[in-house]
């Protein structure tokens, strides 16, 4: 028993040390620059691939050279990322850093695919690091022992640098109070690139040693980024000590659970993350950080059209969309209808996120939870309760709303990046549960679902009826298209009506200045929770509609990348407009459709466009006409993009 426990602790320590190195960079970058770097996992993977490029031609002994050269190269990449993409965003709301680095995830990940191809590759290790040794009755591989010793030494070196050097002193001071550092006459901005580069190099170092331990694959960055966030949140955003304690704790807890209670393996760390965020948002060793200034930039100010023209344009768009199924099979392939259904459903999903993000400033990084919930609610209802589509969709909306209320009740008490993190944690918890529960069909999901449109056994199957519009027969998918379009239009009108009501005015006031809204007597938490419930219900409706049409639900619906993708759509189109995100969904899938004809790596192009949008056009596509107007008409246009509040970050020298 003791032997087995020691072995488990040793195994946990091995992965824990890698986590420490990974999380340390992430945490220090946040501490100094308040940048939540989603691309940290990709820099980690990039380190492993650079090492692979060095080791494969020269053999295993080049591993030691790679261990120093590859992090250096990734460090340079990190400096370039900070200099050219992150820096323009300083002073904006820190949530834009999340969005930017999410775009970089897409770019770097596809670049890895492009250069090194898919699949796992073994990173050859030098002969001296192979074989096994016995340590106090524990059977350990030499390589795992190397990870603990060398990784530990590296962590110690970072700690000593932070603790005993002038640079370390400034970085630590900067992570506690940047303004104070500036007041002391130190230009901390110069240190930003250095810190980002060092963090990237540390991630690369972790990637190499983990690459030798597991394998090197393009997915390795995606698989570590979520545990890395858990560690940083547990230890405390910005705290090196927290990264060490959190990294080791998560490594050991995960391994012990795998040994003794595998059913809880994927759940416990997320429950811990949620608990920490609720009761001690700054984490075990984190310090209170000043809330960053900078607003979320909505697309509402950029419109050129008056309300009447906009309304007419909207009606024309709906009329145009209603014509799509009529030409399917004759003017174009019936696939057009399938594609448009996907766009409409994701447009609804994006609209649901916009209602909470664009109007109350709450950035949910876990909205795929509600989409997945709606999909599974429909699947389970149709399989076990009733085959009525109406009952299934009603339950999907109700259940999604109820869970959104619960998640909102717990989450909305924390704000900003902490809210983003807690929603991510809830979504990951749900995603893991989908794999484990019998009722959700485990990893296979639920499929083979059929439905009818009616109640109490009386209704119609869309595949069995046809509606004749002139010479065109509408049936099956084409009929469902109108149901999806109707749901989208109804949701748009409903949310727009709400936003024009006193309730909507309060939401907007929260977005503009929550403190003022509180001062004039509004319980902002309650309003935000209500908005979150409506948003969750609409996301559930979107997921439910997808399953209703496709007849299946799988855990991938709730994958974190989908939460990121829907944010991409909202930003692409224009946040805070309701219709912008729908346009964003259309552009997203349209680009995918066009680009996949040329390359399988379409996310590279999409990610690049998204990064450019975040930097240069944060108000989205809907603001483009107003931005271009001065060049076309020679007039003054809407004025320049409100400059970020630079006072928060620039030196005072």
């Amino acid at each position: 028993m003791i032997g087995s426990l020691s072995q488990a602790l040793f195994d946990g320590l091995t992965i824990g040390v890698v986590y420490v190195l990974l999380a340390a960079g992430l945490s220090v970058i946040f501490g100094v620059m308040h940048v939540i770097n989603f691309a940290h996992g990709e820099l980690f993977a990039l380190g492993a691939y650079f090492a692979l490029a060095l080791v494969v031609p020269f053999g295993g002994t080049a591993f030691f050279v790679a261990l120093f050269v590859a992090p250096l190269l990734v460090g340079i990449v990190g400096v370039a990322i900070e200099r050219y993409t992150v820096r323009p965003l300083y002073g904006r709301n820190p949530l834009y850093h999340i969005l930017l680095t999410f775009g970089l995830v897409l770019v770097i990940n596809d670049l890895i695919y492009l250069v090194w191809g898919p699949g796992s590759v073994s990173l050859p290790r030098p002969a001296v690091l192979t074989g096994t040794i016995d340590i106090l009755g524990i059977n350990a591989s030499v390589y795992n022992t190397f990870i603990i010793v060398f990784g530990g030494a590296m962590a110690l070196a970072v700690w000593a640098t932070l603790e005993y050097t002038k640079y370390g002193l400034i970085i630590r001071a900067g992570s506690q109070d940047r303004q104070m550092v500036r007041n002391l006459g130190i230009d901390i901005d110069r240190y930003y690139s250095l810190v980002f580069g060092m963090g990237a190099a540390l991630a690369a170092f972790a990637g190499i040693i983990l690459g030798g331990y597991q394998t090197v694959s393009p997915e390795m960055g995606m698989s570590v980024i979520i545990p890395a966030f858990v560690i940083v949140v547990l230890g405390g955003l910005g705290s090196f000590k927290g990264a060490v304690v959190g990294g080791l704790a998560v490594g050991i807890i995960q391994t012990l659970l795998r040994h003794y209670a595998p059913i809880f393996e994927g759940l416990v760390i997320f429950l811990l993350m949620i608990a920490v965020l609720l009761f001690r948002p700054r984490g075990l060793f984190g310090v209170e950080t000043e809330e960053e200034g900078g607003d979320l930039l909505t697309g509402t100010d950029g419109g050129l059209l008056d309300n009447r023209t906009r309304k007419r344009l909207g009606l024309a768009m709906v009329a145009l969309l209603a014509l799509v199924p009529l030409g399917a099979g004759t003017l174009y392939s019936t696939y057009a209808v399938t594609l448009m259904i996907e766009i409409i459903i994701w447009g609804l999903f994006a609209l649901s996120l916009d209602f909470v993000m664009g109007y109350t400033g709450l950035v949910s990084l876990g909205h795929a939870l509600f989409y997945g919930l709606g999909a599974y609610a429909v699947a389970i209802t149709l399989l076990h309760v009733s085959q009525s589509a109406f009952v299934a969709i009603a339950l999907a909306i109700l259940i999604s709303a109820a869970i959104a209320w619960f998640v909102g009740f717990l989450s909305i008490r924390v704000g900003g990046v902490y809210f983003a993190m807690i929603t991510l944690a809830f979504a990951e918890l749900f995603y893991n549960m989908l794999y484990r529960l019998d009722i959700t069909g485990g990893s296979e999901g639920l499929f083979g679902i059929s439905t009818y449109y009616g109640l109490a056994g009386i209704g119609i199957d869309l595949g069995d009826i046809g509606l004749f519009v002139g010479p065109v027969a509408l049936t099956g998918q084409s009929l469902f298209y109108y149901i999806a379009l109707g749901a989208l239009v109804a949701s748009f009108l409903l949310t727009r009506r709400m936003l024009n009501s006193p309730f909507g005015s309060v939401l907007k006031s929260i977005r503009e200045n929550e403190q003022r809204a509180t001062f004039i007597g509004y319980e902002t938490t309650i309003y935000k929770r209500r908005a979150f419930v409506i948003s969750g219900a609409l996301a559930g409706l979107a997921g439910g509609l997808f399953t209703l049409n496709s007849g299946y639900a799988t855990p991938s619906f709730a994958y974190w990348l989908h939460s990121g993708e829907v944010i991409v759509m909202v930003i692409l189109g224009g946040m805070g407009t309701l219709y912008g995100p729908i346009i964003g969904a259309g552009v997203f899938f349209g680009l995918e459709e066009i680009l996949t004809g040329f390359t399988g790596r379409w996310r590279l192009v999409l990610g690049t466009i998204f990064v450019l949008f975040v930097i240069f056009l944060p108000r989205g596509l809907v603001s483009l006409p107003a931005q271009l107007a001065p060049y076309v008409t020679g007039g003054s246009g809407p004025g320049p993009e409100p400059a970020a509040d630079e006072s928060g970050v620039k030196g005072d020298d």
Partner: protein
Amino acid sequence: MLYTPGAADTSITGSNCNEYVFRFETSTAQIAEVMAQWTADELGDQIVYHIADYAYGESVLNEVETRMESISDDYEQVGVTRSDPGSTDFEAFISQIADVSDEADALVVGMTGADLGIFLSQAGARGLQDEIPIVTTTGSFRAVRAGAGEGAYNTYSGVRYIPEIETGDNQEFVEAYESEYDDPPDNFSRVGYESIRMVANGIREAGSRNPSTVAETLSGMEHDTIFGPNEFRECDQQAMNPVWMGECVEPDSGELADVELLEELSGEEAAPDCEDTGCEL
């Protein structure tokens, strides 16, 4: 619509079969036949399992167990460990397997893809291959061998396909593939190629693109394939592929393990009896 999947889960042409699904990929039931026979003959009947905790892993466990039970009265399952699909750290499982390695004759691993590559790599670093023979279902896949590196050496695997085999017109396929892609084809290359070729044969034979007509024609139709004469047999529409048992060995040069074939079962020998498939067509 006709569906020719690349997944090996037995139920696709078993209990979940339907008249529009035809599978050229070798099923887990077929590969388990050769694995179980060879393992019982050469290694023994005390088996410990490690599987990925999803349909494929469970399918391997069930199929190998069923066959081991029918082959040997003394068969015993020494233990089972299960990892989540997509896991990257198998140390805990390797420790548990090492603890029972004295009682077991072989470890059967029911995983594939990156999971299996990483498992073999970490097992190799811990010297598990020296403690207990490791038998896998897909360790012979090129992608798995590339991921496992030296961890693949001295492990055994069921073999669905390797480019070296000289059945049917396989060598013509290999030549054409290599001239197009500069790489030898892997299992999935031949599944994609022959699935499309067999469906095309069906469309040609039926003289129609109507899915129902093509499906009726394809069922039981004779084809010349890379495995020689073959068919999607009528009772479950599973291709009657031959299967092999192989060993992954250290190559003369480079790191990618070579596959040496140890035993072969013909399509008829490997396929389960129609009445045992659970498919009712």
